[in-house]
């Protein structure tokens, strides 16, 4: 069974059969055989339809995005709360706390306190709380690892709910799908990490160490500087290539219910070189990043100690997180749309 989404020139992915679990399993087997042997012929995905599919999903999955943002918030708070409890006692009851919040009064300015965090006081706080700050770095590391694992849940959730074609993407279904595909998504993530690591070894160790001696002996310092930039540039390109490949692989695994992450990733590496997946990721990822940069102008203007300012600042950061995840959801589901039509 398939539906046609209003305004789309290509059909959406099939809705799962409302059959008993055992039968669905059988169907999947049959579908799997069909895909391997006789792929279903669909219209080729255009860039427009791919982007449209991704962006539509991102819009209709706002509940899920809210849920993801809350998860990010919860994870971040585990580090931020100790951070705040460490710095607040040094600042909140300081006679010039208002100046540090950006609203100096006459008393502050008379003594030379200007708007903004005092650079010397901030250094003293960091020195006084050095042990706490070191602990925060370690905590941030492990929280980032958990966030990475959660990313596999989220990828499975986005793709699973998108491929199932449900018009209303609920958090329950998202979590269910995330759990269902977690292993596959994680395996792809690990393969990406290995590729990232190897690329780093090749670029920053083998390549860099081979040419660096000549670069640093060149007459101009610019030779070495540009050498570093070229290697960084190449590494960034490799990073995005691997990342798109990993997302194509994830889409492949979900759309076709495959389990072979290794094969999917290597297929993804090849397919990621096609124009449409590249442009899909670029067309969504780049504007999203530019929006994040643009938000810095908003946060830069939010200065003061009123609750309106602080709440606005909080909301802008949550909006930024939502944009990052929305773009993630849109890229993944856009690529799923592409993969579905380019088996």
């Amino acid at each position, binding site marked *: 069974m398939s539906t046609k989404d209003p305004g789309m020139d290509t059909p959406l992915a099939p809705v799962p059969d409302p059959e008993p679990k055992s039968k669905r399993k059988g169907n999947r087997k049959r579908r799997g055989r069909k895909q391997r042997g006789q792929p279903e012929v669909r219209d080729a995905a255009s860039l427009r339809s791919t982007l449209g599919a991704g962006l539509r999903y991102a819009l209709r999955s706002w509940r899920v995005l809210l849920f993801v943002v809350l998860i*990010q918030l919860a*994870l*971040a708070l585990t580090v*931020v709360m100790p951070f705040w409890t460490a*710095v607040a006692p040094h*600042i*909140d*009851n*300081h*006679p010039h*706390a208002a100046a*540090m*919040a*950006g609203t100096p009064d006459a*008393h502050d300015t008379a*003594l*030379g306190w*200007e708007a903004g*965090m005092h*650079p*010397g006081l901030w250094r*003293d706080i960091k*020195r*006084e709380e050095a042990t706490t700050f*070191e602990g925060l*770095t*370690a905590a941030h*590391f492990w*929280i980032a690892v958990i*966030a*990475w694992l959660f990313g596999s849940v*989220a990828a499975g959730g986005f793709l699973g709910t998108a491929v199932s074609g449900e018009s209303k993407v609920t958090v329950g279904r998202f979590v269910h799908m995330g759990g269902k595909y977690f292993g596959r998504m994680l395996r792809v*993530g690990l393969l990406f*990490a290995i590729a990232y690591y190897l690329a*780093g070894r090749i670029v*920053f*160790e*083998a390549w860099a*160490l*081979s*040419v660096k001696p*000549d670069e640093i002996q060149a*007459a101009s*310092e610019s030779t070495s*500087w540009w050498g570093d930039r070229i290697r*960084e540039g190449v590494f960034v390109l490799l990073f995005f290539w691997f*990342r798109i490949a*990993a997302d194509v692989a994830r889409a492949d695994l979900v759309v076709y219910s495959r389990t072979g992450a290794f094969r999917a990733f290597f297929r993804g590496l090849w397919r990621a070189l096609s124009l449409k997946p590249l442009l899909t990721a670029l067309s969504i990822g780049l504007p999203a*990043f530019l929006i994040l940069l643009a*938000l*810095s102008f908003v946060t*830069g203007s939010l200065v003061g100690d009123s609750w309106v*300012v602080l709440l606005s*600042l*909080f909301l802008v*950061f949550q909006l*930024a*997180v939502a944009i990052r*995840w929305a773009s*993630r959801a849109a890229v993944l589901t856009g690529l799923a749309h592409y993969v579905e039509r380019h088996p």
Partner: protein
Amino acid sequence: MTRRGLVVLWGLLAVAAHVVPSLLPAPAARADLPTESKRTIDYKIEARLDAKTREIHAEGRLTWENQTDEPVNEMRLHLYLNAFKNSASTFMRERKGTHRGNRFDPRSAGQIDLLSFRRKGGDKVFDPEKPVFWHGDDGNEDDQTVIVIPLLTPVAAGGKATFELSWKSKMPRVFARTGFGGDGAFFMVAQWFPKPGVWQKETVDGEEKCVWNCHQFHGNSEFYANYGSYDVSITVPPQFKHKVGASGKRVDLGGEKGGRENADGTWTYRHTVEHVHDFAWVCGEEFMIVEEDFKAAEHGDPEEQARIAKILGRPTSALDLDDVTVYFLLQPEHADQLGRHRKAVFRAIAYMGYWFGKYPYPTLTVVDPDHRARGAGGMEYPTLITGGTRYIRAEKQTSPEGVLIHEFGHQHFYGLVGSNEFRHAWMDEGMCTYATGKVLMKAYDGWTNAQWYGGFPVYGERPFDFAGIAAESRGDSLPLVGWLFDDKWKVPFGDVGIVRSIAKGLEVNHAPKMISLWGQYGEISPLAFVREVPPLTHLSVPAADAKEYERWRTAEYDLSDPIAGRRAWEYMTRRAYATNSYRRPSSSLRTLGGFVGDETMTRIMRIYCERYRFGHPEPEDFFAVANEIAKKDGKGDITWLLDSLFQSEEGLDFGIGEIDVRPAPRLGKKADVEPTIHESSVLVRRFEAMRMPMDVRIRFDDGTIREFLWDRDDTVREWSVATTDTPGVVNRVMLSEDPVPMHGDKLARLTPARGQQARWVRLRFRGPAKVVAAETDPHYVFSLDRNRTNDGHSTQRNAGASVQLALRALGWIELSNSFYGGL
């Protein structure tokens, strides 16, 4: 006139004689700057560089004058290059073979061999096969940095002797600011000739007599020598044609750019300079040489000149500066930074000229060392300084300006005021750091922190250190992961057959034999930019000025030594040497200035620099000048202050312990309170040992502000003060009794020591107004404050700033985590 009238007139005249001088600006001790040194030495050198062997072959004629009243029967000369001869020298032992991140390479060692030394018209007494070295500092018999040459005939008191000598200097790969770089494309030629020590009168074991002040080259020390004149001819290979810079002024030899082409294609340049105590030169194939004129009329600051002249009580014209020709020897890739170099150097020439006396030499050479010889950067020689910059520099950071201004500052504190860098490093480095900070604060906006992404700066800073999962996985705080990803795990690479073939095909000559499984792996900066979106999430901390920067850098280190009274190699650690030679003395000078006031401090520094221009002052000389000027300016005897600031190992940290406000008990009735009357108490604490008079500023809820002075010898711990009910009045009260009218003048009012200042004092207030805030040192006099977080306390909480910080951190972590979630 009646007898009574005469008595009255006489009395009035007597009073006027006492009062009028105190109303006038303190007269300068000597209005004119000395223009000449005593010229102890006169050195003529002919040097020839062999770039291939990195050797300099030189012949010299040294005329030395014994300006003491005792004859001398031996000469002692510094042979500093021998510090880089091997790992056994005192310098190498003390530095453990490293300097500013550079590791000594024994394969590119440097040394100086004195080949001959004979007195003109006298007998040869020096046998190059049997040199005698002095190593009295540490008894290290392997150290060859001071040579002793006996004289058959002593040089009589007031007499002169001329010596003819020759030597060979082998330059090391640049190390500790001298040597070659770029495979011989760049030479920084410093500490390259036998330089006489200083024959001077000292007190030894209670007896005053003349001795050689000629120390070995130590890891933490610099130099000390007599003034004189140098006339140096430098011959360089053809590749260095017109690419030579040197101390002093070039003498025109008739060829292009004042040089002379020799028959063998080499070029000779002759430089002369007078009233200096060292000579250095440089040549680099890549140099882009730009000649710019500092014109006093154009590049000076008339407003500042007039201000300083007024403070000194002299006509403005007395502070006129001289024009200076400045040669910038830049690397071509730094050509776009010429403007930054020019501004920094010109501002330094101008401001330091007003503050410490004009720069008297007609030329200044500013060297931007080759990037293959960074160890040559950041160094001063008479009329020649080396800076150092990078391909890309941040606009809002004062680099390279800071180092350029600092090295120029050494033209005053080291060059013109020739203190002994071995024994009193703070007198040149500390005063120079102070001077650098003054120029930076006058001419620049301060230093804004930045993170570097892909070779470009982004202003702001991370809430705390976190360079990414890959980088942090190697951190000490993650022992298991850190061990796994340690740099020690390496695998074969360059010798693997396929790699060798590929390398050969690509004409790569340096494929590493082993590559690390994790080394050099960490922050990939462009990706970090994508990950954390720094403009959005990083903390925006305003620029810090030099005063604050030096304060917190000083506070980062535990105190272990006094500033004065240690030889450079006698500090607990190298870091202790650095702290006590650079930033702590600078902060101490600022604190001194905060106490005595800007005008008195200006006079102290200027008079000190004038009095000891071309001299060799000791710390006591500076203290004497400071005390003399302070007394003249009505600040009283500040010996106690100078002792605390420069001769103490104690730290300084005052602050507010707590504020307690409660309804006042109704007098005479227990368990009852007066609802409109409050009792406030403010606990003021001295957290560290140093005792100081401390301002305490109290703010009341009715707007009243009162300031108190907690005297440094006040032993009382409890003070009760009635609250004023006059809003908006700054009511300065000396805690003990008298009001103190102005901040800078309070020194004179301090009573002689009565005892030890208590570690705390509690101020009690009773009245309708409640205390809402209290802070120590509100006018920020104490640049030595080790902790500003405890300086003040307010009963009114304002969480705006801390919440802003936390929200930034929240956004930073959330966005970073979201990035990782997408991988």
